[in-house]
């Protein structure tokens, strides 16, 4: 179809200045077109430059970055040659933006409606009354509850999924020709993600605008994009129609991305193989809460009536949406948040609820690995100091002995020994998570609590971390309690699964039977909400609306 593209980008180069003042190219000669009405996906891992490219279409480069070469044309405008003032006119009216985290992108001190119609206020597009009317129409089209009044609320008074849809209304108010979606569903639960994706898809079809959809998740992108560009280190690896990328990838990196999606069924430790199937952790009637205590019960009860056991050498997965209490459960087992009722038994002996009630030996045997290695590792300590600390604390190792053990541990998590002299900020996300894991291993624990340790990582990196966990388990006879919101991750590593909803375990069953035998409606909803690598999955998906209404806080 000989059609003038709406957007054409030629030889785009974007440079950045590192903290040390060195200049680097983060985008290297990228060229592509977007046809009117087409949705283009930019896919790649973090650091691949996908968001940087998307923002450059609005003439914006984040602090420290600048567009150093090439040409960007949007409609009749040459964005690269424009003045900042002229770009201000372009933003919101011709090109608009849907942010990654709407929760952070809404100003906490202004009403939602004022922010949704701000584009029309800034560019004087229409009267306030008309803008509000239009916003309410958009709210309705995005299937938001109470479209007439939701705008009067403040951002903290609506849910995350609602905010994400409200941010789409904010982007569409000025009738833009191009909408940029910057990982808009990454921060949402799978059950919420579906509704948001559906809403985006339908309003984009109605408006006829073109779109750029930035994501690291191929399965999500497959639902909404017409064409996919695969990026790595600021360069285009492969480009083609969505169906073709999924069915017949040609570039090795695309194949690697797709391979990370392949379900890797976990081979459970055979029942006969384990000499003694003794349980390492047994939890009965556990209740956990936060806040001031009123008569031995905390003000905020987060987890109720949890029972389970973990057998030595086997893994338990805990799955549920954000706010279901799964991380709180891990914290209670680690002793950080003492449970206020119930019992815990570790290796046949009663286990203290709080850190103060546990012996050093008991503390050593249970270790926790936190979700964000960025915040879990002290930024001003070297890797050696970080891993060496538990060695000195639990094992009394010092000097050369300690250094030798640190090198051994780094080797176990497949990191070079030279890394021990670096600071966490000098490591990549995947490397940091490995260090985080090595620190837990330093204590030589029997049980490691993994709290969403792969959710902040890119698909390929996360898959390699899972492989590492399995390998370590074979060598060290560990047990994992694996907390995740991602079903496929849990299936890849766990023997048993607990499904949590609203602070309670709604279903417990072997991981292998999860997809086929789960009976609880919430489990079914969760399973059916996981996006599949199939462009027709979302449009073909049917979920019982009553079920959805009952279980998702949308």
């Amino acid at each position, binding site marked *: 179809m000989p059609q003038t593209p709406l957007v054409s980008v030629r030889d785009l180069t974007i440079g950045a200045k590192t903290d040390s003042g060195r200049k680097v190219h983060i985008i290297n000669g990228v060229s592509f077109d977007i046809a009117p009405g087409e949705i283009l996906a930019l896919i790649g891992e973090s650091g691949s430059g996908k968001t940087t490219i998307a923002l450059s279409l*609005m003439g914006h480069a*984040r602090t420290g970055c600048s567009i150093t070469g090439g040409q960007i044309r949007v409609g009749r405008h040459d964005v690269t040659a424009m003045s900042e003032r002229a770009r*201000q006119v372009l*933003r*919101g009216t011709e090109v608009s933006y849907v942010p990654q985290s709407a929760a*952070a*992108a809404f*100003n906490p001190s202004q009403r939602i409606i004022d922010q949704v119609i*701000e584009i029309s206020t800034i560019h004087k597009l229409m009267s306030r009354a008309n803008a509000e009317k239009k916003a309410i129409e958009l709210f309705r089209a995005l299937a938001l509850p109470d479209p007439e009044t939701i705008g009067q609320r403040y951002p903290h008074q609506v849910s995350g999924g609602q905010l994400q849809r409200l941010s789409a209304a904010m982007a569409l108010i000025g009738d833009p020709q191009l909408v940029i979606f910057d990982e808009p569903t990454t921060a949402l639960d799978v059950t919420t993600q579906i509704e948001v994706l559906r809403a985006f898809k339908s309003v984009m079809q109605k408006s006829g605008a073109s779109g750029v959809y930035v994501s690291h998740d191929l399965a999500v992108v497959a639902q909404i994009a017409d064409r996919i560009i695969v990026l790595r280190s600021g360069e285009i690896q492969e480009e083609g129609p969505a169906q073709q990328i999924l069915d017949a990838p040609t570039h090795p990196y695309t194949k690697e991305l797709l391979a990370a999606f392949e379900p890797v069924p976990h081979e459970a430790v055979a029942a006969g193989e384990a000499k003694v199937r003794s349980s390492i952790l047994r939890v009965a009637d556990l209740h956990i809460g936060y806040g001031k205590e009123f008569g031995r019960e905390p003000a*905020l009860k987060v987890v109720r009536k949890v029972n389970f056991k973990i057998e030595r050498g086997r893994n338990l997965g805990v799955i549920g949406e954000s706010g279901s209490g799964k991380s709180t459960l891990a914290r209670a087992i680690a002793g950080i948040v003492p449970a206020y009722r119930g019992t815990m038994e570790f290796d046949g002996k009663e286990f203290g609820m709080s850190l103060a009630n546990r012996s050093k030996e008991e503390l050593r045997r249970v270790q926790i690995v936190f979700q964000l290695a960025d915040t879990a590792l002290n930024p001003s300590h070297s890797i050696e100091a970080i891993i060496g600390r538990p060695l000195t604390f639990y094992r009394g190792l010092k000097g050369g002995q300690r250094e030798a053990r640190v090198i051994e541990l780094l080797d176990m998590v497949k990191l070079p020994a030279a890394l021990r002299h670096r600071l966490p900020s000098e490591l990549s996300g995947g490397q940091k998570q490995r260090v985080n894991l090595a620190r837990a291993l330093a204590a030589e624990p029997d049980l490691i609590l993994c709290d969403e340790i792969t959710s902040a990582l890119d698909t390929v990196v996360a898959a390699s971390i899972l492989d590492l966990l399995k390998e370590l388990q074979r060598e060290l006879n560990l047990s994992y309690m694996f907390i995740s919101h991602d079903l496929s991750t849990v299936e890849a590593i766990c023997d048993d699964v607990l499904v949590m909803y609203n602070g309670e375990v709604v279903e417990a069953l072997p991981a292998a039977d999860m997809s086929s035998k789960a009976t609880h409606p919430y489990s079914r909803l969760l399973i059916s909400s996981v996006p599949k690598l199939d462009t027709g999955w979302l449009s073909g998906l049917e979920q019982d609306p009553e079920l959805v209404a009952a279980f998702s806080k949308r």
Partner: protein
Amino acid sequence: MCTLPTSFTPYFLIAQRLGIALITLVIVSFAVFFATELLPGDVAQILLGQAATPEAVAGLREAMGLNEPAIYRFLSWLAGLASGDLGISYVNNMPVTQLIGGRLISSLKLAGVTTLFTVPIALSLGIGAAMARGSLFDRVVSVLTISVISVPEFMVATLAVVIFAVWLGWLPALSYGVEVDSWSAMLRGYAMPVITLSFVVSAQMIRMTRAAVIETINTPYVEMALLKGASRSRMVLKHALPNALGPIANAVALSLSYLVGGVIIVETIFNYPGIAKLMVDAVSTRDLPLIQSCAVIFCVSYLSLITFADVIAILSNPRLRHR
């Protein structure tokens, strides 16, 4: 979001903050009373001088109630304080309230003029520097504020006297005794103490305001405003500033509270008839009731500034205002 108990309304939090301020005040007055008690020397002895007979000293002690237990004297002093009776000065036998009255107003005038002069200038410089971050203007402001912070105020005061009063002869070296009958005379009288105080106070305010605004400018919602086509001033004034209000109020209060301490040096150097000067004189004459009252007044002004800033921070938090 988790549901918090209803007691977390802003009014409850404000009441709580006021209660804490009151308790702090009682604790501080306790400390002030017993710290002054520890001052070396016997008041009766000092009042009567070297030649006094032991009988006369004992009689005076009895008459002044100095033989009562300390805790009893503290409680009755506290009761007097609460009812506005600050006691009788040892030295000139006048009610402390009368001694302090005029002086307090003079000091408040000085502080008020300094506040009116500094706050608008400091806030606009701080916000301006944050808006033009990394520019020449920002760097000039940063260098100036750092150099001003590093110079102690007695140095600034002395230099001001040398330059404006001695060399140029524009302003009077002393503020006391200047005829305050016209605007120009008043300006001339206040100019040097105000300039000296402003130097120190505004430098802190500029730096903290700049930091608070920059922190909010770096948030995703300000970037979002940029991507909606907002101009730089709209981004800062409409999106960043309202969310930086709490930290800015705290910065202003902390800086202004410095006036309370800084005023002692400035009033002494310029011989300004304020309450700090009164306190310095009271220390040299060991006039305990006067010292104690002045100390409590300083404490009250400090506490009310900090509490005021906290209340603004609570009220400017949308999560507390709209639940």
